[in-house]
């Protein structure tokens, strides 16, 4: 009788655990870490917040696509799915693979009509099936309206994904966290938080290209008397223009969401050892 009672209690306790797992809210609880410590430290969430839209705003060849792909790599390495809505059709999957993206988990969407770009991103975000979605609007001539920005925000919030919008300088978006990305010298990328309601506005970081492409960095030959920073060393403005690096306190990891979200993503205790596996 006692054994049966104990078993019933155990089953009830497990039921309650399962209910807790199902009831755990999925929004605003975690961030997607890119694995680039300096970038992850920029925002208060210690990564790119899930359920939010982030705008990566910058010139051509500023490094915004690479940052988006690093976020994608963090998601796909944890067996999650990523989607890249490639408006200009310029994404080079070889670079994505080099940045750690698992290509079999990356959906690339290339709508022929620019008018379908935002719709596609909204559909993907709303589905909740993708952890990270990038919407590339560079060279497409598309400028997001306020209503479209709201739609994107609502979709990201509903799907609990991190939605990255890559915008050119002439077509910035509204109502989303904006990170300005620009080349800083020859070997660095500068990322500055221009707008964020969650705090952190004004923070900036200098990220070396080497840390984005970790293996075999290019060996540049410098011309016109510039140094590795891209500025002439005797330029008096150089010292003023160089931002301070942030303090490095976050432990280096390979990015992703795991272990940062209570509820569903907390690792379950190992069962294999008790089963003799």
């Amino acid at each position, binding site marked *: 009788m006692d054994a049966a009672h104990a078993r019933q209690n155990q089953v009830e306790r497990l039921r309650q655990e399962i209910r807790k*797992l*199902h009831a755990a809210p999925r929004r605003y609880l975690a961030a997607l870490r890119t694995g680039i410590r300096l970038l992850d430290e920029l925002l208060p969430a210690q990564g790119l917040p899930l359920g939010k839209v982030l705008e990566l705003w910058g*010139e*051509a*060849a*500023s*490094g*915004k*696509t*690479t940052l988006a*792909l690093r976020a994608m790599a963090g998601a796909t*390495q944890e*067996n999650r*799915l990523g989607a890249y809505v490639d408006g*200009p*059709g*310029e994404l*080079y999957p*070889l*670079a*994505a*693979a*080099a940045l*750690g993206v698992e*290509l*079999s*988990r*990356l*959906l*690339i*969407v290339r*709508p*022929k009509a620019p008018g*379908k770009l935002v719709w*596609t991103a909204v*559909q993907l975000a*709303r*589905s*909740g099936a993708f952890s990270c979605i990038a919407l590339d609007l*560079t060279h497409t001539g598309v400028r997001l309206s306020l209503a479209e920005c709201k739609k994107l925000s609502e979709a990201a919030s509903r799907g609990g994904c991190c939605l990255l919008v890559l915008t050119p300088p002439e077509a910035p978006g509204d109502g989303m966290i904006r990170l300005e990305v620009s*080349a800083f010298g*020859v070997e660095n990328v500068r990322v500055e938080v221009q707008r964020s309601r969650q705090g952190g506005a004004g923070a900036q970081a200098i990220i070396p*290209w080497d840390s984005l*492409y*970790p293996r075999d960095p*290019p060996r*540049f*030959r*410098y*011309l016109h008397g*510039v140094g590795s920073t*891209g500025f002439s060393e005797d330029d008096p403005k150089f010292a003023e223009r160089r931002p301070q690096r942030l303090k490095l306190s976050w432990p280096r990891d*390979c990015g992703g969401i*795991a272990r940062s979200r209570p509820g*569903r993503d907390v690792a*379950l205790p*190992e*069962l*294999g050892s008790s089963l003799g*596996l």
Partner: protein
Amino acid sequence: MRLLYLHFERFPIQRQMIEAPTLAGKPIVFVQQIRGERKIFAASSAALTSGIRPGMTLSAGTALVGTLRHFTYCPETERAALMSLAEQLLLIAPAFQLSSPDGLWLDASAAGLCQGEEGLCRRALEICSSRGYRARAAVASEAFTARALARHGRKTAQVILPRNGARALEALPLAALEHIDGSAVAALRSLGLTTLGEVASLPPAALLARMGAAGLLVHRLCRGADDSVFVPTPLPEVLEESIELDWPAESHEPLLFALKTVLDRLCARLCGRRRAAIRLALTLKLDPTGQVQVWLVLARPSARAKILLELAKHRIADLTLPNPIAALTLTVAQSCDDPGSQLALGDVPEGDAGLEVVLSRLSSVLGEDALFAAELEPVHRPEAAYAAKSFRPPEAKKGILAEAEGCQVRITPQADEVLAQRPSRVLERPASLKVELDLEGDLRSARLLGKHRKVLAVSGPERVCGEWWAEVPYNRDYYRVFFDGFGPAWIFRDARDGQFYLQGMFD
């Protein structure tokens, strides 16, 4: 051979109630035309309670119940519904034989996979229940014994051991023999016999003398000896389901209602065959003439009615038709094996369904070629170094399986040295670049995005050449160039014409 018989009491009524749940609890009947009269073939419980009986004329039934709704009995429709259910039961049995209009035999030889014949009965009833049908099951070694017990027995499920048929049948009424020979049953009744056991106790010679061969056959059946052979019903090669609407539909709602019925049947048939649909053709027949065909393309093969219905909803939402819709036909044009999927603790199937629905929706609207996953190709030419393939993300193994295989969160494998030098953006076609070179032949500046830009730093060259055997060989020297006011770009000098081209950007 062991056989399982499933009997569906008043099958047309059950089917109608499932397809139109609003009729539940209401008096409805099925009528058929017999010698110019519309006679009631089957009646719902509410109609039976009101005194309506099969065999009555419709006029008599309507006189009894003013609100009686009637439908015309169509054997083909009932057979199609029964066939769909039977095909779904192939999940637990290797073959079936239809016994129209309200039953079917299943080959019970695979009962060992369902924890015995009791388990097989239970599983079969569960499948029927999942489709909304109430049934009774019986397993026996003879087709007649199984059928008679399922139709006239008192238990919902029973298993009769071999050579125990006579004892199991002895309490059943003579009505169990009606489908064999009605005149023989009438003759037995006139003799005062009421059960099969009484018939079995008669001397066979006496029955042969009085009733001829029919009497001998009846006697053998009542003793649990049946020679009839199980003949599996052949499966149709084309998976197709049709439905005719009661009246032409002018809005989406009745169309979706009919579509759900058709999809439920079609997906049940797919499930039974362990197949998943990739492409379906939905043909809408218009009233009075004309038809429209809509293609439903699935990015991931599926046999789930819910997903297909979502997709169909999306596709027909934007459809504008000149005439109302009178009938619809759904055909599986392409299918593949369905491996199924395993969920882990804490997962909900809606997550997977969400992925499949959104992929299907996108591929329907944007076209199949707009969605893809990239696969690296062993090709040196940069623009041909990857190929598009359909997006089939691998299933994430979770829980104990993942633990056992050690496939937890993985660390990024080191990128290949060549890959690490590739830009994140590559132009569809390399753009011609006007450059200035110094006396030593090094790059000094170039005209880019409408501006004259100085070269600040250069890395390279990296020579990429090949395909000398092809019509268009290539021989390029690639440079990673940092322009003033612009990020790093990937340019090359084509050895064929000596010109510089912009291939991509390290964005």
